[in-house]
């Protein structure tokens, strides 16, 4: 095989691992929220605010993991706000999502202004590829611990949805609010908690953006990953394990542009940068009316009606 092709493939592998992590966290958060029967379109706001808070806290305290935690807290705040507002009657959850998107990014840009210049300590990666003796491959296999946290979390969620009382309650609330009420479950409380927890996860996804890859804070940091993750959950059919694979696919698509640029193909850079959006759109077209998706969708979800 041509060496340029191999370089591109390795860069895409590394890119898939790196780029997929924020997708993974937002998708898992959204998956939890949607399983409870509510949609949060505002996770883009959580992602951006999480990225800013993580960078600021890491810069001020010198500890990037504290930044990750603070990012989760910021996401929790926005998620809880979303969950609380949607509890009110006559309020449209999709519109609230758009509002939270603009509120979250507004707050992030406002408070993030002083943190664009300074350099904050970043998260360390685990070098998994040193044994290969291939510098490009070793570079690609520098994996951030959050990647593994995401995978473990998805397995736990998958297991919990099937085997625990809490998982059953969330699924029941999502499939039929009436039966949940009949069982004495507070639908509003379950959805509030699921939205808040989903927001927490999305905030952590933001921390990865600013503290690992691309690894700095600026206003153009997120380019719609938070929104794409919402589409990704539909594609993954509300299955946490499939969310991971979908996130890897999106990561690879997002890595095409930079990978081609690394071998000197910069023609059409913007076109390849649009690849994840085009992929998302096609996936939505393909999966929106499929029978499989119709079987798996939580019955109370407004997005597929």
């Amino acid at each position, binding site marked *: 095989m041509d060496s340029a092709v191999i370089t591109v493939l390795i860069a895409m592998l590394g890119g898939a691992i790196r780029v997929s992590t924020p997708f993974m966290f937002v998708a898992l958060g959204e998956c939890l929220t949607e399983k409870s029967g509510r949609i949060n379109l505002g996770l883009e706001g959580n992602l951006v605010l999480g990225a800013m808070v993580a960078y600021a806290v890491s810069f001020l305290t010198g500890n990037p993991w504290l930044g990750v935690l603070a990012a989760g807290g910021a996401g929790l705040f926005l998620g809880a706000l979303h969950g609380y507002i949607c509890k009110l009657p006559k309020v449209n959850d999709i519109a609230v999502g758009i509002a939270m998107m*603009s509120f979250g990014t*507004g707050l992030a840009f*406002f408070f993030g202004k002083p943190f664009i210049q300074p350099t904050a300590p970043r998260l360390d990666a685990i070098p998994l590829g040193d044994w290969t003796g291939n510098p490009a491959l070793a570079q690609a296999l520098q994996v951030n611990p959050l990647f593994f946290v995401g995978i473990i979390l998805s397995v736990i969620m998958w297991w919990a949805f099937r085997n625990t009382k809490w998982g059953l309650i969330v699924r029941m609330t999502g499939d039929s609010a009436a039966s949940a009420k009949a069982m004495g479950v507070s639908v509003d409380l379950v959805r509030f908690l699921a939205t808040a927890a989903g927001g927490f996860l999305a905030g952590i996804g933001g921390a990865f953006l600013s503290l690992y890859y691309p690894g700095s804070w600026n206003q153009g940091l997120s380019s719609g990953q938070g929104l794409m993750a919402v589409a990704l959950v539909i594609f993954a059919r509300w299955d946490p394990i499939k969310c991971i694979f979908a996130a890897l696919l999106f990561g690879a698509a997002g890595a095409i542009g930079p990978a081609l640029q690394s071998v000197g193909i910069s023609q059409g850079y913007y076109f390849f940068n649009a690849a994840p959006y085009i992929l998302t759109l096609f996936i939505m077209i393909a999966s929106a009316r499929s029978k499989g998706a119709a079987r798996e969708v939580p019955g109370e979800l407004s997005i597929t009606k």
Partner: protein
Amino acid sequence: MTADTADKAATKSSAGPNLQLLRFAESITIPVLALVASALVFSVFLLAIGKDPITFYSLIWTGGFGSSFSLQNTLQRAAPLILTGLAFAVPARIGLTMIGGEGALVLGGFTAAAVAIPMVVGGVPPFVTLPVMAITAMLTGGLWVGLTGWLKYYRGVNETIASLLLSYIAIAIMNFFVEGALRDPSSANKPSTMPIGDAYRVGNIPGMDVHWGLAAGIILAIALWILMSRTTFGFAARMTGGNARAALAQGLPVGWLMVVCCMIAGACAGLAGFFEVAAIHGQANASLVAGYGFTGILVSFLARHNPIAVVPVAILFGAIAAAGGVIQRRMGMPDATVLVLQGIMFVVLLVSETFYGRIKFFQPRSTGDRI
């Protein structure tokens, strides 16, 4: 608040419970109260970071309406907001949450600039070139957003996500050409298309320092109000928005209505892009991505998706944008201050939706029925 109290007085003086008047009063009072509430929440935010809210609001007043210069600045900024506000309002009436106005604006502005290049080089006179540019912008915007409506009805794709994805794709398309095939070599720092030149600029409304986009926006707002509230088309669209299944059962062409409403929306946003290129920038570049499409969503929500009400609300947001510079300089606050204010307004406004039909004052007293 004066409008609000006047309405209350009007409702009290009217003999008997007039349902239409009550609903009209409700639909004005609740958004006005939401605006006041969000101003209070933002004041708390300002106090928390050690800034003076009174200075802030007085700066918005002077920066937005205080002098004839600032008023014209406000109207200039309101022009694209009217058009992008309409771009959200029309699909909202048919029940679609279509947020792709930004992309249609960018793509419309870009195609207008692109189609102008050969015409300017070939010496085609401006009175031919400008209408061609405007029509191109409206057509591309209309087709781009029309695609969202088509995907929604015929493929079941959620229109909110699809329209936002299409926005990102539209911006990528513009960047692709502006930094590639259509780049003007002399635009070193900021890749742009070739300038259309002063002779091809859209001029100002006589007697004002405001371009014709404002007049176009107001005319379109009135036309769309008539279309949506006084025609069979508008009635069918609103009925679909109320209950799409009932509309289908009545034999209304729901899919066609959705596509047409989306195309109207896209044409409005595309026209905004045309004016941004032909009246402000003179060329297409990254300046087109200024967030007008997203502010338009908020404008439409505050106007309760009523095309006429979009105009004053857009002027209010134009004033906030116009005052942004003064606020940055005088109060030492970042430019994102306006974003925070808009975010708070948006959230509070949506919370206020919960009060419709729940405030006793606005309910007819004679019967217990709510209509």
